[in-house]
């Protein structure tokens, strides 16, 4: 459960991170959300509005870029049908200053949970399927930023 290393060799991370790389300077905070398999979930379906969902994410990204000194910013959200373990959302925020990268990343993931036009439907092993209701906790976290 815990991996600790002190190593003289290069640390190798990857893929989207390489794409995102801001010239290799400063700090990158990231958040990866995966579909959880709680309660025998077999499928998560995310409905989206092609224009509104993209516009909402774009606005969110620009607000973060206005608020913090960011060298690079990546927001990727998956939609459609997903299985437990699948990556559903990726946030990457880079800044010369770690506090800004961390704050921007946290702001973005909190806001993605409330502001972006997405609707979740869960399907379980016994065949039940239900659309997820908005969660109060998410709104509480998102409002910290106002």
């Amino acid at each position: 459960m815990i991996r600790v290393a002190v190593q003289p060799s290069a640390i190798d991370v990857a893929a989207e991170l390489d794409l995102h790389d801001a010239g290799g300077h400063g700090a990158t905070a990231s958040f990866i959300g995966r579909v959880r398999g709680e309660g025998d979930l077999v499928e998560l379906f995310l409905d989206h509005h092609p224009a509104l969902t993209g516009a909402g994410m774009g606005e969110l990204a620009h607000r973060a870029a206005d608020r913090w000194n960011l060298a690079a910013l990546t927001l990727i959200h998956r939609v459609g049908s997903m299985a437990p373990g699948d990556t559903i959302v990726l946030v990457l925020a880079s800044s010369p200053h770690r506090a800004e990268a961390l704050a921007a990343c946290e702001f973005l993931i909190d806001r993605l949970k409330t502001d972006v036009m997405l609707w979740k439907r869960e399907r379980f092993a016994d065949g039940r399927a239900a659309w997820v209701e908005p969660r109060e906790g998410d709104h509480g976290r998102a409002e910290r930023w106002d």
Partner: protein
Amino acid sequence: MALNLSYFAWVRERMGIAEESVALPAGVTDIASLVAWLAARDERGARAFAQPERIRAAIDGNMAAPGAAIGGAREVALFPPVTGG
């Protein structure tokens, strides 16, 4: 006047379609009256729009309150409150 309607999440499921083009009757001038008209139109509409307070709307890609006029709009999207990412 023809208006494109699009539905999302359980609104879409209850309507049984993702979009349609409708001719609005006189008196349907804002989101609230559009929702009331759809609820009264047929059984699918009654199921989808039984609780107007749970319906959100966007007019041509912009979020719109129940009182928002749908005057020259091309598209109205109707959906439940978002559940986020």
